């Protein structure tokens, strides 16, 4: 197994950034979010949870789809040969469409936690099944995921509930698994992509037989994971086929009341993948882009007639039904939550998926 001392990480980042775009947790203005590492940027893999999840790597908040420009068809052309007519022929224009650029270079996502890696699987089921989302696909094909074990999970974590193992990233669908133990980062390639990356930076590493150390670290983490307040959270009653009983339940009316209808939960969530498509008028055309949308917003899928979800209760219910019932129903029981606990930490009104699950358990 390879290892590198923590103090040398910057040179590792530099080395990776030498041949790839490096997307990793970076601290700016006191907060850690994923971003592209540049010389001088403050890489931060100590913070357990970035505020936004790593999903931007494959599904950025904003993405250029294509641009449309007006091209002028001069009067005479529009009018044909008839020069007479040309003079007062209304000028016609035709539209020129230029698709947005797909990612065609490999890039590295560094320091992703097991829960976020699981979230990628969740999104794959959405974007890579028919109809395939070419923008997402190109990013997935070129993204190299370096996962990092969670040295000290926090009380808001409940990934184990969904079978995510914070201790062993190699179980997750990552290309490289890493552990940070006593000031040293331990590095284990899992896939060809991972090997390729490793090869590019191998000279920074030292060889070391650390399996024992890693095993020790794993059991330490597992020990903590067991103590977490929500470790025993039960998903009984949720999952595939529960639509009717859950949708009709009165419990929703109790739990949604405090909801502000903001998008915090959806935007920090690693698995939320709804988006809206918008146009921006430029000099002589429009740019069509997509951006994250939130089912908590009153204008989510709003139509002229207003037939979207009209009350916050409906919106609130939609979000959790989607994560805990609809999605599992369509994806052989896989839940659309990975227990990262970001919503637990960030909801302005302290509402979150855990409370919802518990509320239903109490009100059986």
């Amino acid at each position, binding site marked *: 197994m390879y290892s590198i001392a923590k103090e040398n990480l910057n040179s590792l980042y530099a080395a990776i950034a030498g041949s790839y775009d490096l997307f990793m947790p970076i601290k700016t203005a006191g907060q850690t979010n994923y971003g592209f590492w540049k010389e001088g940027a403050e890489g931060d893999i100590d913070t357990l949870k970035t505020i936004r999840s790593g999903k931007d790597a494959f599904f950025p908040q904003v993405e250029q789809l294509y641009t449309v420009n007006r091209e002028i068809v001069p009067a005479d052309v529009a009018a044909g040969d008839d020069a007479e007519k040309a003079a007062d022929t209304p000028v016609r224009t035709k539209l020129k469409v230029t698709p947005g650029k797909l990612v065609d270079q490999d890039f590295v996502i560094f320091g992703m936690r097991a829960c976020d890696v699981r979230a990628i699987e969740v999104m794959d089921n959405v974007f890579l099944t028919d109809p395939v989302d070419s923008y997402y696909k190109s990013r997935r094909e070129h993204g190299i995921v370096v996962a990092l074990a969670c040295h000290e999970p926090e009380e808001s974590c409940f990934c184990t509930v969904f079978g995510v193992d914070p201790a062993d990233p190699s179980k997750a669908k990552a290309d490289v698994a890493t552990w940070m133990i006593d000031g040293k980062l331990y590095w284990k390639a899992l896939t060809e992509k991972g090997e390729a990356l490793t090869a590019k930076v191998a000279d920074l590493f030292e060889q070391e037989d650390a399996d024992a150390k890693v095993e020790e670290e794993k059991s330490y983490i597992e020990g903590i994971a067991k103590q977490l307040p929500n470790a025993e959270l039960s998903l009984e009653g949720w999952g595939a086929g529960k639509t009717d009983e859950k949708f009709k339940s009165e419990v929703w009316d109790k739990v949604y009341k405090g909801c502000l209808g903001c998008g915090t939960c959806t935007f920090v969530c690693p698995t939320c993948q709804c988006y809206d498509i918008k146009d*921006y*008028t*430029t*000099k002589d055309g429009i*740019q069509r882009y997509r951006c994250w949308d939130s089912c908590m917003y009153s204008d989510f899928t709003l139509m002229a007639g207003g037939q979207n979800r009209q009350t916050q209760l409906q919106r609130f219910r939609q979000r959790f039904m989607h994560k805990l019932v609809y999605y599992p129903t369509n994806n052989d029981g896989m839940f659309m939550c990975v227990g990262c606990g970001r919503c637990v930490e960030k909801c302005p009104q302290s509402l979150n998926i855990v409370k919802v699950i518990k509320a239903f358990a109490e009100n059986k």
Partner: protein
Amino acid sequence: MPMNEENKEFRPLIVAFCCNWCSYAGADLAGSSRLSYPADVKIIRVPCSGRVNPMFILRAFERGADGVIICGCHPGDCHYSTGNYYARRRMALLFSMLEYIGVENGRTRVEWCSAAEGAKFSKTMNEFCEKIKSLGENVRLGDLRCKN
């Protein structure tokens, strides 16, 4: 199009909101008295300086304007008697906020100009253009997309 093709000298883009009753008339007077000011200034007619919503000003900057000036009747002369008093407070606060977030002073301006002050109008516009030229292109408030 801040740069004009022939010579690379910086030509600012300036949006002027003029109230219909005083300043727009003042601009007309400047015209009929042939008191020139740079073509960089483009005037938008509004009924009253009180009609100018701060969003218009930010919008202009977003779209690449380098300077925005609001002209209205002198305090006390508003055709609608009070519009410019409200405008005065709105703009004072907005300008102070723009300064606060680091936008260069002088990119925005309010000038009271009556229908009789054609000379003042053209003088003001000349000054303002000079000021904006000295400040250079507006990069801090611009939206890069609208340039292409």
